[in-house]
């Protein structure tokens, strides 16, 4: 499960969707289904964490030298 946190959000979502689809088909043996369920819950936690707990990313601006600086929105045009 350690590797799950290294997944990108897109990968985690795609995995989660795949697992739900597999389980919904209903022909999964119980033991496998439980393992899918655990994996799915872990993935949903990863997605949840990524969406809820990750700090806001900074907005940057490229200066004339091509370097990045932090950017604040100017209220006056």
């Amino acid at each position, binding site marked *: 499960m350690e590797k799950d946190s290294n997944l*990108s959000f897109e990968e985690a979502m795609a995995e989660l969707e795949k697992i*739900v689809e597999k389980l*919904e088909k209903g022909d999964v043996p*119980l033991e496998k289904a439980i393992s899918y369920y655990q994996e799915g819950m872990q993935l949903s936690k990863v997605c949840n964490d990524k*969406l809820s707990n990750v700090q806001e*990313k900074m907005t940057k601006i*490229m200066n004339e030298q091509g370097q990045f600086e932090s950017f604040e929105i100017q209220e006056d045009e």
Partner: protein
Amino acid sequence: MEDNYLTVSALTKYIKRKFTTDPHLKNLWLKGEISNFKHHSRGHMYLTIKDDNARVQAVMFAGNNRRLKFQPENGMNVLIRGDIGVFEQFGQYQLYIQQMEPDGIGSLYLAFEQLKEKLSKKGYFDEQRKKELPKFPEHIGIITSPTGAAVRDIITTIKRRYPIVQTTIIPVLVQGENAPSSIAGAINKANQITGFDVLIVGRGGGSIEELWGFNEEIVANAIYNSQIPVVSAVGHETDMTISDFAADVRAPTPTGAAEIAVPSTLELLHNVSSMQRSLTRIISEKTATASQHLNRIKQSYAFRYPEQLIAQKEQELDKYVERLGTAFNHERRRKDERLSGLNARLEALHPRRQIERTIKDLKQLNKQLNYVMTKQLEQSQDRQQNSLEKLTLLNPLETMKRGYAITYSSSGKLLKTVKDAAESDEITVKLSDGKLVSRVLDIEEEKDGEG
């Protein structure tokens, strides 16, 4: 008198000066139709401006026509600003065009339509070449003015919807003469910097002239060649630019571009919880079904009366053991029979019998041989006896013993007939016990051997 004549050059110069100083021929506005249009390789444009009754030669030098937003064509009605001058070499007046606009239709609109058609033919707007936006972008490049309302709209919308995405502004001029190269340069630069997975290119609303930077071919090329998907958001919903057509996705407004580029965290959280609920529901149902199944099995005869099952199995086992014994015996018998058969065949083929037979044959042959030999010997003895008897019978000595004599001539020749001797011949008469030497006294021949 000669001095009163003017030279052609002097006359032309005079006329030219008149034309040049006449304020009505300076900065005049003329309306007409283009004909005989020719775009010289050095950049100057030569054309005739005409109406139903008259025509005037015109030239638009490269320095002026470079700023044209449309491509002049024959038959096009135009509005012209320019000066009238004289081309001395040909003694011909002509119109020097400073500025030219299509009549009835805006030049920018015409230029827009012309470029749109050109790029469309080149396949710039083909749907199949448009790239898909990533579902969950990680780094968005915003190519716009850092001071406009658009950048604020885009960033606030992104932060509200999907704060976990990294945003970077690549500042550009969004209007004015240098806007196109600035925008195109930024798109190209963004493609060289790794990490962007979406580019939003745009600006807020404005007049067609203000938005014009996004209608230039250089910008369309940069968007077309971009490896990163481009969302175009120029002006308001009703404004359409070449950038919008060339982009992978066109957004109605900058805010719309942000909404298209990023998903909504709230919606995603909702999706994730919905999937969590699905997982829990599915696994609960699954375990419930499995439990029911298990209970059914536990209630089954086999589990309730296991000793019966064993008894039954024991009985089955007995049957199997019995069958096994029968089968074994049957098989053993079969094997025995086969062995006996083989033994008998082998015994029959034993060499001792052959030896005995051979000895018997040999004895028989010996017996036959003895018999044959004895027979042969007896026959030989008989023959010999017979021969001896015959020989005895033929023995002249024996004959002589019975009184017979043999007569020889004096020369020792056997006398068989009286004719073999003559009277007085000395003859020898041989008897069984000696001989008589005699003389023939008389010869008496007998007929037919009687005597």
